[in-house]
């Protein structure tokens, strides 16, 4: 009769429902602390998230004791998680700066895992082959100097294409992102005007007044371009490919127009080996070499050289070893370019150097 009676009935029902759900949950194989299992949590970049998620799943089959989870929240979150140790490992597309490294609670190592590419994509009706661009053209489009699709410079890059006289709409990333960082890193290398008008490379991009629309995330830019005619922008390779958007070949440092493929992206890393420092923090945009795709980059996993927990550290190190060796085939299936073999050797050296309490974790 009274409300409290009803509340009691309801709560009883709810609790029993919950118990049902929970018992269901507990009966599932994964999760919880099934004796001896080591749990690891990783946080970081969205770009490599598909392959990292595949790796942790596959590695769980190789080593059932390991329960690794990776959550993508962006490179910045990965760096912060590594600095504050709120996760067991972080992931970032761009290497950390010296100041960032100083804020970490110990020595942080950069372990490169795969390579990726930032591509120029667009939405233009009536074009059969993908348009190609030289760095100067890209510069002029983003700075607003080229405003129509049938501009002479675009024609020069694409002599056979029929270009309509429509206005170009630029789409850029409004949020801070590793993709922007790679793109601006490339643009500052190839265009002094960019450095002056837009600024040094960074996670944020500020185009001159009135140019472009900001979209959030790779998916926002992709969605914008896909749904709005006459747009052009830069996104991560996989987004363009998975959404059927055209991918523009870019003129690299040797003058050839190169499409981003597994080979050309790996070539970009390989050609820059001489310039790669020991800590492996390097930018490979505008790489030398004929076959190199000019807007490529590494992506890194960040771990402490000295691991607090020996059990966790061992699983982490073994996992990373497996990922950069046996895991390569999965990466290629998912359109991530593998590391050049020399880099893999350097990764091995680094992994061997990781210790816990003074003792190296890999024998």
């Amino acid at each position, binding site marked *: 009769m009274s409300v409290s009676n009803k509340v009691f009935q309801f709560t009883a029902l709810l609790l029993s429902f919950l118990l049902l759900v*929970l018992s*269901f949950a507990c009966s599932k194989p994964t*999760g*919880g602390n099934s004796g001896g299992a080591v749990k690891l*949590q990783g946080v970081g970049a969205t770009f490599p998230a598909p392959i990292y998620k595949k790796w942790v799943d596959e590695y769980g089959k190789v080593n059932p004791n390991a329960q690794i989870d*990776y959550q993508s929240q962006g490179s910045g979150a990965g760096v912060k998680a590594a600095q504050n140790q*709120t996760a067991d490992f972080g992931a970032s597309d761009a290497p950390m700066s010296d100041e960032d490294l100083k804020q970490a609670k110990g020595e942080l190592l950069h372990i490169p895992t795969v390579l990726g590419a930032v591509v120029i994509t667009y939405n233009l009706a009536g074009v059969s082959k993908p348009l190609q661009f030289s760095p100067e053209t890209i510069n002029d489009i983003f700075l607003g100097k080229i405003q129509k699709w049938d501009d002479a410079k675009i024609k020069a890059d694409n002599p056979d294409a029929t270009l309509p006289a429509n206005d170009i709409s630029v789409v850029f990333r409004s949020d801070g992102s590793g993709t922007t960082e790679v793109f601006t890193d490339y643009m500052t290398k190839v265009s002094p005007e960019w450095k002056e008008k837009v600024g040094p490379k960074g996670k944020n991009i500020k185009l001159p007044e009135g140019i472009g629309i900001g979209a959030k995330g790779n998916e926002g830019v992709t969605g914008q371009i896909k749904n709005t005619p006459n747009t052009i922008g830069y996104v991560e390779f996989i987004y363009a490919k*998975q959404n059927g958007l055209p991918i523009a070949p870019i003129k690299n440092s040797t003058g050839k127009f190169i499409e981003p493929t597994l080979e050309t992206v790996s070539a970009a890393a390989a050609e820059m080996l001489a310039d790669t420092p020991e800590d492996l923090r390097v930018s490979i945009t505008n790489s030398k070499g004929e076959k190199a795709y000019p807007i490529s980059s590494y992506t890194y996993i960040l771990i402490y050289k000295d691991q607090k927990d020996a059990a966790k550290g061992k699983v982490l190190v073994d996992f990373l070893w497996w990922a950069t060796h046996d895991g390569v085939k999965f990466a290629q299936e998912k359109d991530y370019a593998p590391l050049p073999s020399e880099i893999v050797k350097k990764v091995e050296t680094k992994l061997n150097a990781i210790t816990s309490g003074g003792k190296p974790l890999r024998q």
Partner: protein
Amino acid sequence: MAVALLLIILSYIAVRGITSINYEFLTDTPKPVGEGGGIGNAIVGSLIMILLASAVGMPIGIAAGVYLAEFGDNWFGKFIRFITDTLTGIPSIIVGIFVFTLIVLPMGRASAWAGGMALALIMIPIVARTTEEMIRLVPNSLREGALALGAPQWRVTTGVVLPAAAPGIATGAMLAVARVCGETAPLLFTALGSRFYNIELDQPMASLTVQIYNYAIGPYDVEHKMAWAATLVLMTLILLTNIAVRYLTRKKY
């Protein structure tokens, strides 16, 4: 009318998502893209955190609402009311940052506790204000009747006024729960997410909204479909809860 618009949005989601719903989807954990997988752990995680949030947020919110309605006609009450109104407008991301600094950093990791607390913080102002408005609508004759018969103030409020306002308070509670069910940003910073089933409150926990967010911003169309499907599941769960609460607090004529 506006109802038509409502149906347009709902049907868009339904059409996009319905094909992906099956038993496995509802009970399995997330798998690498292209290998199926589901939102089972996310459903459980969301339920747990929302319950946590309600357990903390509802009592505080209702109590605050009662205070504002019964004792809140002075300058202090006006001040609190103003603050509470402002709190309803905080971007949830600020709540997330706040709880991150307060709970996640000291704890050294993300946890379901932190997630639940963040959601509670969002709930409290909404529940408080709607409770206050609904209690104010209870006619004074009820209060006077009870008082005249000798009941103490607190009994009048808990035994007479609250039950009378119960349907309205339930509306406020459901609005708060619905709002919180759709929140992503605070959970991202606090509970993180997980691909495992997990009921430990001091570990990262998956939730429907974070999972939907992750699927929606990925490049793969198959994941987009799962995002729509998960949204459908979320809305169904809320609908069911709504119906249940409405049924229990209905006025009998």
